[in-house]
């Protein structure tokens, strides 16, 4: 039976949502291959996560628990995943294109001497050959390339968060748990964590329901202050184009696009963003796109559901007033 594997990314017992997104697409791929979906979970004292993995559609979970796996380190995690893959021979292995997933994937693919495609945005099975078709942007998103790995197994890919949606949770769905014992020694890890400095403020861009984004056209830091106020009214986050980030108006954590975050909010508002391909690459999957720009030719209008030709500030100020009114704060 062919298996489609998803590496379950967890830190301190919290599963990264991208792993659920991947379980969803893995199920579709497994269906096309008449195969099964399996989650691969490594860590220390993480067994209580197994049920959750089943409830997002996994038929099997491979579990390796060891003290050395308490937090992510390249060498032991590569060893764990590679040894599992050598033993059980999955057809496909998917990982999130997060810092952790990318770091791990490069090592595992080398150990298994197989192909690895980074930052995939589309996954399907070729009906004729049964191979996995992996589509990804290349050259800064200017072109798309479909990659295959026909002669080697597993076929490996990293996928960005928010490319696929999280599947419906089935709380009662259960599968088979396979515990695997592997020897690890602390010295083997060769790297030790001395400290961890958490971010002061986490920007939850990828999973925000509303994003109020600004670009070069917003003109400065004060402009982003106004956008932040709108975002606050809606319980959303502020996004930005690369030029706005490079201008120092807002931090990199807010950047949307090819070299920033991929987002898919219910509503994405783009103020003073031209909408180059690199920016669109990160936001075109949004449910509804509202764009405000003075230039009728701006490419952002080509993907906007609602485009407004005009000055961003006028709209933003009027919108903020209207939102306050809606929520009962009369000025």
């Amino acid at each position, binding site marked *: 039976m062919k298996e489609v594997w998803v590496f379950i990314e967890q830190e301190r017992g919290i599963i990264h949502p991208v792993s659920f997104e991947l379980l969803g697409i893995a199920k579709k791929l497994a269906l096309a291959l008449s195969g099964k979906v399996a989650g691969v979970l490594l860590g220390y004292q993480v067994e209580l996560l197994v049920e959750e993995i089943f409830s997002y559609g996994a038929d099997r979970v491979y579990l390796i628990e060891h003290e050395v796996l308490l937090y992510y380190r*390249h*060498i032991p995690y590569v060893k764990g995943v590679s040894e599992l893959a050598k033993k059980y021979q999955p057809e496909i292995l998917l990982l999130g294109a*997060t*810092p952790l997933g*990318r*770091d791990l994937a*490069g*090592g595992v*693919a*080398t150990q298994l*001497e*197989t*192909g*690895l495609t*980074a930052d995939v945005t589309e996954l399907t099975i070729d009906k004729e050959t049964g191979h996995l078709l992996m589509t990804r942007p*290349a*050259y*800064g*998103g*200017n*072109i*798309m*390339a*479909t*990659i*295959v*790995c*026909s002669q*080697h197994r597993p076929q490996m890919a990293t996928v960005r968060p928010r490319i696929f949606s999280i599947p419906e949770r089935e709380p009662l769905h259960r599968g088979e748990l396979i515990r695997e014992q592997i020897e690890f020694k602390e010295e083997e890890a*060769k*790297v030790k*964590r*001395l*400290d*961890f*400095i958490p971010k002061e403020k*986490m920007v939850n861009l990828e999973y925000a*329901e*509303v994003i109020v984004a600004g670009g070069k056209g917003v003109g400065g830091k004060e402009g982003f202050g106004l956008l932040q106020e709108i975002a606050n009214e*809606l*319980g959303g986050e502020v996004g930005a184009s690369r030029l706005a980030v490079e201008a120092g108006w807002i931090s990199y954590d807010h950047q949307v696009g090819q*070299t920033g975050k991929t987002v898919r909010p*219910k*509503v994405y508002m783009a103020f003073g963003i031209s909408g180059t391909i690199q920016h669109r*690459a990160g936001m075109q999957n949004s*449910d*509804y796109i*509202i764009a405000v720009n003075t230039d009728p030719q701006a490419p952002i*209008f080509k993907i*906007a*559901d*609602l*485009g*407004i030709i*005009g000055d961003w500030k006028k*709209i933003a100020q*009027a*919108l903020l007033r209207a*939102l306050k009114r*809606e929520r009962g704060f009369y000025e």
Partner: protein
Amino acid sequence: MLNILVSIKQVPDTTNIRINPETGTLIREGIPSITNPYDVVALSLACELKQRYGGKITVITMGPPQAKASLREAVEFGADRIILLCDKKFAGADTLATSYTLAETIKFLQKDDPFDLLLFGKQAIDGDTAQVGPGVANRLNIPVITYVIKLQDIDLINKKIIVHRKIERGVEVLEASLPVLLTCEKELCATPFVPLEQVIKATKAEPEVFTAEGPVIFTREKLGLKGSPTQVKKVFTPELKKQGKIYNLEEVPLEKVIEEIIGVLKEKGLL
């Protein structure tokens, strides 16, 4: 004394890329080649470390003959030895074949004098894969730390290094034993000041050229296109979604537009 290896790649400057809309292929004419910006960070760090601790910098790149330009640039940063891996048999390599070719070359270069520090870019901006660094480290059986934003300390006596690594939730402070392979983020190091005589020296520098025939002994099947498990099946230009409603504020009153936005927010359950 530090023995440093830097692996760099020459890439097309993707800011200026244009695509032929009919064929979906890259218009190569007039696209300048640059040294991958993250690799420039790696070179900068090597330069700074050499100035501080003394030592030697070896720089390698795999690519076509024009990649020599990037190696000459490396000499400005104080590279002592520059090597171009250039052969038709290397061409068409994916990340697995690239990491094989680079790792075998590194093994050859460090036979008598092992490297302490191997510096790679976080990723190359043409493919954005970030796979080659971890791949090489695995083949050399040494630790790798990706996304390094700060080098806090190097202890040359105990052969240890402390670095800061950027991850999603914050910054990890990690200690590793040397040798170690680091992949460099932009923040890691600013471009250093380069003395004029080094710039002049760079213009005259000629790299050593290594081919598939030697001096490194390669397994042929693992090189280039032949050694690449992934193949590009199709290339196309992404299509744009159909256009929606457009209002021009010169024609439509502001209130109507705001009303419409509020309507959308309500419909999506956000208000």
